[in-house]
């Protein structure tokens, strides 16, 4: 029995009403960003049309309504990720900003020359470049855990590299290229045992498998709304309260202060001190609606649906000649992201050919250049799944790949 009623779900997503070049849209790029259900769009429009004002400090009705909605988003996030308090949730521009806030605001304050920051070789640039910048500023050293021969997090190397010099372990919850799911629980436990904090890049993990941050026990988690049916322009950072207390604000401005003189300022309480300026108010309403949509489906069902499609797709892709998949063969160690190449066809060509068949996949380095270089290819094509995808979409992908295989078949060489 399928985990999700995809027909009902698809009817919530207006994009699927559309035909492009006479063809249905087979959207297989949710790893880059998901489509939006009308529940999310309607909630934002209704709010912006009739209840909008700037939040906080306003003593009038609209402002109170807006503040209530904004804080409801914080509570919804807290509930969705199992935080012990909404105060542990900082609303940010997205996962990238959240990771920069953590790297600069915590790492920039607490790292010293000689300290080590342990990452993986398959991090998204968002969980790599901020640490490179902070390492340069503080004199800390970067080190990396690679993937093993099955594209899994290499736990042996991790254990070998983990020592008391390691102050930060920053790791993706799910690779946006390989689909790899590192063993977070074990990573958290072992990292804490040497006194290192654990930063989880939850940009892929949380939309697809959910998280219980309290149960997981990590120190920080970063997430974007736009990959989980929500709007662009908003995301969140969860931090355990004691870690948030150790973090300095990354941006200065309005709403983040307790007192200000011309020369200096003191910070507001957590989480407000990390939210300088007018926040993404309208977007917060969309994020709440997205969370409610996912909660109604149930994150277990969402994860199971991803897993079913992934298994089906990997099964069919295994039969395509010259096709290489980059990612764990152990299905329990991977999420619904499939990177592949087809013979000597360049992934950009694949994406273009697939697009003319109505299939949307991404091609390139997926903001993980060191990883793609380590794979020994200039780029990969990537198909990724979400709640509105069906085996039809996978079949369309396979049909598109056979068109591509035909165009790039050796027999066509003049």
């Amino acid at each position, binding site marked *: 029995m399928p985990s999700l009623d995809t027909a009902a779900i698809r009817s919530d997503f207006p994009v699927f009403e559309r035909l492009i070049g006479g063809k249905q849209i087979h959207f297989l790029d949710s790893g880059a960003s998901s489509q939006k259900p009308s529940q999310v769009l309607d909630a934002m429009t209704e709010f912006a049309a009739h209840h909008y004002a700037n939040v906080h400090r306003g003593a009038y009705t609209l402002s109170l309504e807006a503040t209530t909605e904004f804080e409801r988003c914080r509570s919804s996030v807290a509930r969705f990720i199992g935080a012990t308090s909404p105060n542990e949730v900082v609303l940010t521009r997205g996962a990238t900003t959240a990771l920069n806030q953590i790297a600069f605001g915590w790492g920039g304050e607490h790292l010293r020359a000689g300290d080590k920051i342990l990452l993986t070789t398959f991090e998204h640039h968002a969980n790599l470049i901020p640490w490179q910048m902070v390492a340069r500023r503080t004199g800390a050293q970067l080190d990396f855990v690679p993937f093993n021969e099955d594209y899994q997090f290499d736990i042996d190397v991790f254990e070998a590299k983990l020592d008391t010099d390691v102050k930060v372990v920053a790791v993706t919850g799910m690779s946006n290229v390989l689909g790899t799911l590192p063993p977070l629980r074990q990573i958290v436990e072992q990292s804490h045992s040497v006194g290192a904090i654990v930063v989880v890049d939850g940009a892929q993990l949380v939309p697809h498998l959910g998280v219980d941050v309290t149960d997981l026990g990590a120190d920080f988690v970063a997430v974007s709304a736009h990959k989980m049916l929500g709007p662009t322009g908003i995301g969140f950072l969860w931090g355990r309260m004691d870690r948030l207390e150790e973090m300095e604000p990354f941006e200065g401005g309005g709403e983040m202060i307790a007192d200000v003189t011309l020369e200096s300022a003191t910070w507001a309480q957590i989480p407000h001190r990390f939210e300088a300026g007018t926040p993404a108010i309208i977007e917060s309403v969309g994020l709440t609606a997205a969370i409610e949509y996912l909660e109604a489906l149930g994150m277990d069902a969402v994860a199971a649906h991803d897993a079913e499609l992934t298994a089906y797709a990997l099964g069919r892709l295994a039969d395509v000649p010259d096709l290489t998949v980059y990612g764990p063969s152990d299905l329990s160690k991977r999420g619904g992201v499939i990177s592949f190449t087809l013979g000597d*066809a*360049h992934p*950009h*060509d694949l994406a273009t050919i697939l697009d003319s068949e109505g299939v949307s996949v991404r091609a390139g380095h997926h903001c993980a250049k060191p990883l793609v270089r380590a794979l020994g290819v*200039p*780029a990969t094509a990537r198909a990724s799944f979400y709640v509105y995808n069906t085996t039809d979409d996978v079949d369309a992908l396979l049909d598109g790949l056979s068109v591509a295989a035909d165009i790039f078949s050796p027999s*066509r*060489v*003049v």
Partner: protein
Amino acid sequence: MSLEDLYREVIIDHYRSPRNREPLKHADTRAEGVNPLCGDEVTVELELSEDGSIDAISVRGQGCSISQSSASMMSELVKGKSRDEIEEVVEKFRAMMDLDGDATDVIDPEKPGSVLGDIEALYGVRKFPVRIKCANLPWTTLAEALERTN
């Protein structure tokens, strides 16, 4: 033969068997181009005669069939040409790829290949605007290499 079919065969051919790939021993100028959005790369090296015409050309790189075939076809098209002739070809190619213009001013869809040769196959790329930058990459790199001699 439709332009789209032409696009496919000629492009795959140049992609698989790129022409003029050998590095030049005594290049007078060179330039490297990168398309930051997709990562495609092209290197252009030139040997020029006194009057500025292209005696020898090498194009190498990595990327999709559009950028790499464009490089290969470009190298065939400009080799041996004078500075003026190159300018004319560059201008025609630019016009062919310009979505704001009407490419049929430049090339004749009834007689594919009659104006710019093989490279007219890239006319089909107009249907995929996001890929036009790929087709243009070798050309902007050539322009940069030539500019460096001024």
